[in-house]
């Protein structure tokens, strides 16, 4: 990091991220493989917890590759990484709240309308 900043100061003109093109091609390939895997989950008809686990696994690995490499988050300072990636944790709390709420709504509907899922 300090290397990059001194280089910036030295040239005054060079800016931004410099990585070999090969890196992007490799990541592109991996994203293809992972997408094919998530498609196969549906094509092969996996069900239950295995299906959900695999879907979420491939989803998060793909998201990590896109944010980390393509969006260059891996080379940013910790300050920016935290400023952007920590707030979405609140969404997980929201997910927890809405799971409780949805279950409550479902129970209410079943009890009062008598329809089972």
């Amino acid at each position: 990091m300090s290397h990059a900043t001194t280089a910036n100061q030295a040239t005054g003109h060079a800016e931004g991220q410099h990585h070999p093109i090969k890196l992007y091609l490799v990541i592109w390939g991996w994203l293809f493989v992972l997408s094919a895997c998530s498609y196969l989950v549906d094509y092969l008809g996996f069900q239950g917890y295995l299906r959900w686990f695999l879907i979420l696994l491939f989803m998060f690995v793909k998201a990590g590759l896109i944010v980390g490499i393509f969006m260059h988050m891996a080379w940013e300072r910790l300050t920016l990484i935290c400023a952007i990636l920590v707030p979405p944790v609140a969404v997980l709390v929201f997910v927890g709240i809405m799971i409780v709420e949805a279950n409550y709504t479902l129970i209410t509907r079943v009890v009062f309308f008598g329809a089972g899922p």
Partner: protein
Amino acid sequence: MANPGGPAIARPNDLKGFSDDWSSDQQVFKTASWGKVMMWIFLLSDTFIFSCFLLSYMTVRMSTTTPWPNPSEVFALEIGGKPVPLILIAIMTFILISSSGTMAMAVNYGYRRDRVKTAVLMWVTAAFGASFVGMQALEWTKLIREGVRPWGNPWGAEQFGSSFFMITGFHGTHVTIGVIFLLIVARKVWRGDFDHERHGFFTSRKGRYEIVEIMGLYWHFVDLVWVFIFALFYLW
């Protein structure tokens, strides 16, 4: 510390550097320009918008007493007289990922000040994006013909239609805006605005190749949102 507030300070990238970055009245983001940071913060807000859509989808799907239509069958296409599940969605996924790949390379060539390759790769990205929107229009047409409406559909829970149109519609809008944004920036690259530091029309700031990376952040985000929609709406 010798140069407080300056744009580029060599400082450790650990917790100590983290707390130094945030403290004592100075520029927080040392290595990212204001433009890049503003794009990141916009994307963070957009993250919350899409999170709310996906959350409301989760909530209605969990709380409905009628069964949810099986996306694997709803989005199947007949190929050679046999239904192939989710095939169009899979193709759209690969197209969007490819567009992300070409965008990442465009950013890279932009920083190498390779005007022609940057512009061409951005046009390729825009073409991928436009074909994605085209396929989405095809998908919408098919579903609307089959009777899917925001208030009902032939296969099960009514909320399926409203969730589908809201989530994919908002994502498609983002892709469309991205294609327009891409074409505008690609034109500037092609014209050599960033080589001659030509002043911008609205901002009258000097043109820099960094705008290609900022544009790229937006484009990758659109791809990122699709990763989540693909997993949570189509595959779940």
